[in-house]
C-alpha cells in the first residue's frame, strides 16, 4: 500500500506493479483507476487519510487474497487532486480469472465503505467536506 501527496502517476504505478509480479505466474491482472470527474464546478478533490486504520484494513485484505492465491495492491492520494487526475489505484493479481474479477469488485466496494479516507470538494481554493457522498463505516453509531 502506497500513499502519495497529490495525483497518482498512474502509468508508473501500473507498470511497476506489473514488473513486481512478473515472476509470480499470475494469469489475470485487473487494475482499477479512480479519476476525478469534472462536475459541480469543482477544481479538485482533496483527501484526508487515517493511515494506521487504513493499513490494518489493507493488511486484512492481503490475508484474504492470499488464501485464494491472489495478491492485492493499492495506492491513494493525500491532499489535493485536480480534475481529470487519478487519486486511487488498486489491483488484483491471480492465477484464476474468476478470483480476480470477483475480488476487484469486493475490494473496491469494501474500500469505498470502510477505508478511513475523507473527501472534500475544492471550490475557489476552499475545502468542503463531501458529506452527501460519504458513507458511515461498518459499526457507525456505537457512541450515539
Amino acid at each position, binding site marked *: 500500500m502506497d500513499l502519495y501527496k497529490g495525483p497518482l502517476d498512474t502509468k508508473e504505478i501500473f507498470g511497476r506493479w506489473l514488473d513486481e509480479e512478473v515472476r509470480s505466474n499470475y494469469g489475470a491482472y485487473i487494475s482499477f483507476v*479512480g479519476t476525478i470527474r469534472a462536475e459541480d464546478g469543482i477544481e479538485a478533490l482533496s*483527501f*484526508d*487519510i*487515517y493511515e*494506521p*486504520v487504513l493499513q*490494518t484494513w489493507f493488511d486484512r485484505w492481503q490475508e484474504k487474497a492470499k488464501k485464494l492465491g491472489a495478491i492485492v495492491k493499492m495506492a*491513494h492520494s493525500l491532499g489535493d487532486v485536480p480534475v481529470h487526475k487519478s*487519486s*486511487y489505484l488498486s489491483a488484483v493479481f491471480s492465477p484464476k480469472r474468476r478470483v480476480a474479477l470477483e475480488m476487484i469488485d469486493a475490494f*473496491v466496494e469494501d*474500500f*469505498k*465503505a*470502510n*477505508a*478511513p*479516507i*475523507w*473527501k*472534500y470538494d475544492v471550490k475557489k481554493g476552499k475545502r468542503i*467536506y*463531501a*458529506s452527501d*457522498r*460519504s*458513507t*458511515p*463505516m*461498518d*459499526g*457507525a*453509531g*456505537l*457512541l*450515539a
Partner: protein
Amino acid sequence: MIKVEFLGPIAQAPIEMEAETLEDVSVRLKEDRTLAQWLDKCAVALNDTMVNDLKIVLKDGDRVSILPPVCGG
C-alpha cells in the same frame, strides 16, 4: 486518563478524560451538542483497531478515534 481524537472533517481538538468504558466516553461526548450530532454516523477505533462494543474496558493511555463517514477513491 484516556484520549479521544476526532478524524477527518470533525473540527475538534483531542479531548482527555477519565473513562472506564466506551459507554463513559459516549456519555461525555453527548454533552457537547456539536459532537453529539456526529455520533450516530461515526465509527470508533481503540488504539487504531476498529471496535464495536460499548462494554470494552479502557486503560490508562488508551486512544479512542472517532471516524466520520468516509469516501475514498
